[in-house]
């Protein structure tokens, strides 16, 4: 197994140990120096195709210092301590207009991981897909401690 502990690996730095606040601040500083707008998002659905997470407040434009964003991140952690939280940096340059950075800054204590689902289709055909064990429960109750 290359990914012990079923850690969700989405976005940047996801194979590294969790970033500390100082490291997060340094990453934010880099994004700000490029003029990217930064937003904080959360979800409790770890499926890799779950692209659009819930926004925690508005994206933050025109900031000069990471302290303000770190404040939002910590507020979000307090509210959604057992959710996945990611920080996104959006590059609004014409022609790019897409996220430039995205990394997870908070994850649930226990990540049960994914199971393989086999679906028998026509003939002897089998469809394969992944299914998150956590997603069996309704939204908001998936990672309750």
């Amino acid at each position, binding site marked *: 197994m290359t990914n012990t502990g079923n850690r969700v690996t989405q976005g940047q730095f996801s194979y590294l140990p969790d970033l500390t606040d100082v490291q997060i601040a340094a990453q934010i500083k880099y994004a700000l120096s490029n003029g990217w707008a930064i937003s904080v998002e959360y979800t409790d659905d770890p499926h890799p195709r779950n692209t659009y997470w819930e926004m925690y407040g508005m994206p933050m434009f025109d900031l000069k210092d990471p302290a*303000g964003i770190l404040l939002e991140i910590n507020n979000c952690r307090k509210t959604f301590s057992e959710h996945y939280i990611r920080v996104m940096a959006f590059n609004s340059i014409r022609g790019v207009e897409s996220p430039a950075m995205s990394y997870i800054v908070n994850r649930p204590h226990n990540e049960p991981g994914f199971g393989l689902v086999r679906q028998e289709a026509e003939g002897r055909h089998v469809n394969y897909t992944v299914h998150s064990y956590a997603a069996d429960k309704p939204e908001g109750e998936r990672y309750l401690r």
Partner: protein
Amino acid sequence: MSATNVVELKLPDDTPVDLDAELKASNVQEVLDKLDRELIGLKPVKTRISEIAALLLVDRVRKKFDLSSAIPSLHMNFTGNPGTGKTTVALRMAEILHRLGYVRTGHLVSVTRDDLVGQYIGHTAPKTKEVIKKAMGGVLFIDEAYYLYKPENERDYGAESIEILLQVMENNRDDLVVILAGYKDRMDRFFSSNPGMRSRIAHHVDFPDYMPDELLGIAKLMLAQQNYRFSPEGEQAFEEYIPLRMKLEHFANARSIRNALDRARLRQAKRLFASRGRKLTRTDLITIEAEDIMLSRVFEEADKKQG
């Protein structure tokens, strides 16, 4: 092993303190000199700023000796009549604090009530927080801060904004410096109804009105910045102009001077245009003559009063 390290790190009590070197390293003298050069008058303001600069510098040296003390609270309140240079000084303040390493980026976010207070329930908090986040790492300048609190309307959302500001001023002291500005009497009333605000602001600086000779100095400085200058007669005319303008209504110190100069430039351009037949030189382009000033409405009104 670690014990010996600690002993080595701690400097002995009789280590000489070189404040001069520290001053040079911070480049703050440069900013203070610039302040002295470019801001005329404002004695109490300059004294206070150099005091703050000295405190921060000494604090930096103390840190080297491992003498920790609480981060000084640097929230400020600027009071003074219109046009006395509150915004200009606030901008400089951001730069000075940045040089001294007190704020991280040294930018100034200038806001008024409109930027902080929302229009409906639940609108104010996000709006205020957004402004605060923008100002983090720098200086938040709230112009005409007394408008935040409107005692005659108990449902006004300004109070909510003040509450959030107070919280941030206390908890995020190392992230941003808040500077309030406004006219003296109204600010005093504002503080008397918001004692929490008053106690969280350590520095109350009063900006005095300018004397006529200071205003003349300001005028010359403004002209020099725009590559103009007075002719000797022009300067004399402006010297006469200043006391007359000061007696009129709506006199706004340096701002009135700037407007007067803008109008003088208009008249100068008109005069140059009218004398097209003559050969013009560079001197003509940069000189404000007496007649450019004497044509002002202020002289007319002064004559009317006398007559």
